């Protein structure tokens, strides 16, 4: 297992280097010169050229790439092309905090709705309740966010005045409720499906029959034996939900006016702000890879039967 983890850890930096190179390469293919974009239409060619020199854009691609990697290793991700004098780190930091909070709130919604409902559906297998839950969750899952977001705002904020319509004020304000629901409900649908499937799997196991045979109460069987074991495969999903912060909540951040990383990356793509974009892609890839690794390791701790190879 140690060998497995080591191999994965050694592959991670290579993967990140390749990902960063890809963004750099896209940066050279992309139309539009960052210097021209920043100075506007009326800038003289001399000024544009001076800025290009200043930003290091006149150097060939491999040199710029090596310079970026060298600086990044020292913790310096460079300066934004668009926001003058702002370091990439100072741009991403606060927005990352916002997105992380939003996604934690959304995951709480998804888990607290999805797990019990999935468990309940599995227990009601064979009745009409089970397919009814599955189908209604699938309807919610398929609902495009272009509709969910304005609908929730219209109903809960404009009509009922229960919560504010938009904006951001941290994870513990009422403003988080609607965006968290918008992201969390489709997420809940996925948890319902998987929780139901894995609960059904566990119910059929011999040790559940044993537990029943030795006269344990239904409550103990359900919660200690079934639900706990059924939750295990769900862990994978949870990791990916949290790692999906980058881009996953793009349209939600747009409609609710939340200053998160998805929004920042969209702006960076459109404004050719490649230092910011590269940093975001690196962070996103790193989180995904780490989430994968942590899940793998967590599995072996929770379920000793699993051995990594």
């Amino acid at each position, binding site marked *: 297992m140690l060998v497995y983890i080591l191999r994965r850890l050694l592959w991670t930096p290579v*993967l990140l280097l390749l990902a960063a190179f*890809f963004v750099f390469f896209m940066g050279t293919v992309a139309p539009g010169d960052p210097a021209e974009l920043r100075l506007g239409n009326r800038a003289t060619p001399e000024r544009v050229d001076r800025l290009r020199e200043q930003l290091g854009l006149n150097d060939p691609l491999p040199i710029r790439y090596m310079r970026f990697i060298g600086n990044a290793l020292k913790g310096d991700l460079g300066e934004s092309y668009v926001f003058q004098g702002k370091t990439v780190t100072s741009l991403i930091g606060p927005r990352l905090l916002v997105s992380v909070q939003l996604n934690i709130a959304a995951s709480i919604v998804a888990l607290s709705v999805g797990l019990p409902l999935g468990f309940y559906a599995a227990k009601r297998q064979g009745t009409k309740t089970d397919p009814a839950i599955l189908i209604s969750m699938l309807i919610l899952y398929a609902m495009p966010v*272009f509709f969910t977001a*304005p609908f929730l705002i219209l109903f809960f904020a404009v009509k009922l005045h229960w919560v504010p319509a938009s904006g951001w004020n941290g994870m513990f304000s009422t403003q988080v409720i609607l965006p968290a629901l918008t992201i969390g409900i489709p997420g809940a649908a996925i948890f319902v499906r998987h929780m139901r499937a894995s609960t059904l799997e566990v119910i059929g196991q011999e040790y559940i029959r044993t537990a029943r045979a030795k006269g344990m109460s239904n409550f103990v069987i359900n919660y200690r034996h079934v639900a706990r074991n059924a939750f295990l495969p769900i862990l994978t999903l949870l990791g990916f939900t949290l790692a999906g912060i980058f881009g996953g909540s793009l349209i939600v951040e747009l409609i609710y006016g939340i200053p998160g990383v998805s929004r920042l990356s969209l702006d960076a793509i459109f404004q050719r702000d490649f230092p910011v974009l590269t940093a975001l892609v690196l962070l996103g890839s790193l989180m995904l890879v780490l989430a994968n690794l942590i899940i793998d390791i967590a599995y072996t701790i929770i379920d000793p039967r699993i051995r990594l190879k």
Partner: protein
Amino acid sequence: MNTDSVTSELRGSRSHWQQVWANFRRRRLAFISLVIVAIIYLLGIIAPLIQTHDYQETNIGKTQQGPDNENWLGTDRLGRDIYTRVVWGIQTTVIITATTLITGSLFLGVTMGLMAGYFRGWIDAVIMRIGEVISAFPDILLIILLAATLRPKIVELARAIEDSTNITGLVSSGVVDYLVIGVALLPLSWFGMMRLVRGQVLALRDAEYVEAARAIGTSTPRILFRHILPNVVSPVIVSVSFGIGAIALSEVVLSFFGLGVQPPRPSLGVMIGEVTARGGASVSVLRDHPEQLLAPIIVVWLLIFCWNIVGDALNDVFNPRAR
């Protein structure tokens, strides 16, 4: 009597696919979903026949009207007929779905999967590592980045082709838009399929019948495509049916940001993007002119929902044990 009919006689007169179809039809909800999907796609394909207006035709005297006898789903901000634009938008979805499927997941994904699984070794390693790098990217960001960067290049290329040959209308016909979307979705569409096929092939490559084929000197392509591929078809079908909804949604997201299909050509994403001013006006539009937002959204909603139901049913039909 040829050999085929003899074998099917022996099997009790019903072929594997007839059996699959019979089992599928017994699932009422899935069957209805498939019919709905077919109707939606059909509407798109015959859009020129069933349109009531021209999709570009504006009517300044009649803007933002609700549904009536002349405009079945009302008119938009420029007085264009929403019903006509929706059916043309579906046509766009049909074309993009077909091209993305055929190029991305079917062609690239299946071939790569066959190769990685059968040859293993360094071919497998290279394909898997490329896939890992690509899948480490945040999905939506990668699609948007590719579309934003490649669009001008592809447009340039198309213009060059138009100039040097007699072909005209490449850019205006929308072919370029389809190409951009197809290319942008490519990195995402092949990897899942490739991993699926690879896994199946890994399990099959040492099966006795494959070994037998190898022993009598069957060529490698023949083993891959005649002996192994047919056994991989059912998981591929299941995976495709789950993926189609996502393709439709990706087109909507790209066109929503102005990176996919370009106006005046209608697409469901263009309609949603235009009417909500890229998301900013979603709430007021839903309150004041719900039909303008709902018409394109309900189509996407139905497509994703129905394809998921169909995918579930196919999964059950093909793997009756894995439930």
